[in-house]
């Protein structure tokens, strides 16, 4: 009896010891900062840096969320997501469908279509920064310089250009995801429809596409979530400009916190970002829960 109790205590002690590094890190770098961020949102930054910040309670939350700046941030972010996510998925799916065949040399094409996974956001952004440069850029040479300053300095084209870079950088990932999905489809169904004499387009629309809908939804959600977190391409290509035309939520957060010394304002934006992504993650979890239960039925 005594010995069994001793073994139990020993096991529990080992358990706590093994989870301590992970739980300790989560406490210090995830949970504490999340609570602290919410708390910082209650304090208004002083007009000059050396004065103490000033407790205003929920007032700052209300004023930031109700501000036109926040509405503009959200508008730009939504525009960016709408430009980059659907088109990115369509291109990835089209390439995967194109390469889903057994012809000589197809492996080379698959490697090429996957190749952009090797580029980071910074690499992709610097490549396009030079391509779009009005003096030396080849794309500017081919498509025009947009009034001599390049499209990154044009308020109408800056955000679409950033979306284009994002789409290109994600082609590899989307292609790999869609190819894996196509390969996992039940081949018998596709073969049967071929025998039935359905045309390639009808087969794709009526059989392949419905079978792919879970993975398309999945790609859409992670695309939207990463779209809300897209920072590097904005920083390298436009810095939120020209004239705030590409100022997305996360870039505003960064500038308020680290350039304008306004942590209270940035904290409210952080909490807003957290809540938005939380809702999107719930949609994703809910969806997978449902899919799992279908699979078990």
């Amino acid at each position, binding site marked *: 009896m005594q010995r069994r109790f001793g073994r139990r205590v020993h096991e529990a002690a080992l358990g706590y010891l093994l989870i301590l590094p992970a739980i300790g890190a989560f406490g210090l770098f995830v949970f504490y*900062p999340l609570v602290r961020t919410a708390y910082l949102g209650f304090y208004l930054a002083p007009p000059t840096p050396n004065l103490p910040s000033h407790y205003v309670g929920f007032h700052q939350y209300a004023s930031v969320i109700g501000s036109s700046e926040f509405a503009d941030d959200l508008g730009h972010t939504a525009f960016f997501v709408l430009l980059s996510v659907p088109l990115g998925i369509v291109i990835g799916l089209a390439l995967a469908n194109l390469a889903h065949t057994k012809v000589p040399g197809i492996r080379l094409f698959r490697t*090429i279509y996957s190749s952009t996974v090797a580029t980071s956001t910074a*690499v992709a952004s610097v*490549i396009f920064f030079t391509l779009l440069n009005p003096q030396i850029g080849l794309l500017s040479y081919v498509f025009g310089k947009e009034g001599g300053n390049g499209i990154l300095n044009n308020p109408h084209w800056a955000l679409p250009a950033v979306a284009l870079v994002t789409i290109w950088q994600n082609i590899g990932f989307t292609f790999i995801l869609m190819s894996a999905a196509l390969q996992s489809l039940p081949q018998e169904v596709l073969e049967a429809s071929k025998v039935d004499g359905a045309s390639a387009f009808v087969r794709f629309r009526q059989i392949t596409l419905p079978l792919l809908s879970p993975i398309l939804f999945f790609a859409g959600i992670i695309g939207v979530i990463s779209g809300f977190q897209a*920072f590097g391409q904005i920083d390298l290509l436009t810095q939120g400009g020209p004239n705030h035309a590409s100022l997305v939520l996360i870039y505003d957060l960064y500038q308020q916190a680290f350039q304008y010394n306004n942590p209270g304002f940035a904290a409210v934006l952080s*909490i807003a970002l957290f809540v938005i992504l939380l809702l999107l*993650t719930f949609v994703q979890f809910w969806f997978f829960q449902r899919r799992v239960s279908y699979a078990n039925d």
Partner: protein
Amino acid sequence: MPTTEHAHRRRIGRRVVRYVVLIAAAGVVLFPIYITVVDALLSPQQIVHRPPILFPSSPRWSTFSTAYQSGNLGIYLRNSAIVTLATVAFELTTSVLAAYAFVFLRFPGRKILFFASLATLMVPFEATIIPNYQTIDHLGLLNTFPALVLPFIANGVGIFLFRQAFLSFPSEVRDAAQLDGCGHLRFLFRIVAPINRPVIGAFGLFAFLSSWNQYLWPLVVTQTNSVRTVQIGLRQLAQTNFSQFDVVFAGTILAALPIAILLVAFQRQLVAGLTAGAVKG
């Protein structure tokens, strides 16, 4: 047999069309990379030449060593390697240990602590960046390697994936091992971890890519070239040396090369590795 010949012709025609489309698509995808490689091998005068030069007739390979040395790419790549390897080593260790405890050990609060680990998946790092910056500042760690590693030593995705994998481990084997006097740590490192190499490898690849590609946090906590990672180094190169664009092009290639090599080497784990993080919001 005119009909079979007709069908044969049609099949060849279709195949030609497919190749044309395949090649055109490959051209569009590769164009930005191709131009960057070509421009890295041209002189600055040749780069601005119009019409553009699309093939380097006398490639200047020396630009790569200029980027590596005076462009500091050598230092940036070394820094990224140090930070990424340390981060991955920590993440794998903390995740394996925690997942083992959650599956094979009994202790009060086990469920709630696992739930807390899962809950971290719902907190985007960007939303906690201000207090994290303050913490690193108070610890006196700004502009050091630990600043780049510490916030990422544990990862809920790893714990989640490893727990799923460990759960499918037959409990009879555990009981048999225990009867043989095999202690928990030996059981973990000799049996459980080796058997689960595929999932550990897939998560390792995912962790490596996410750490290597980090941008916002390294931008915020580094101030000098001696600790800047390659992503931030590239930003530095593009913003301060933009007049020497040949060096910028070469630096961009050097920055992408290690990951390109890594992905070719780990081609088979790629799909699992890329989608491993998909459970995180």
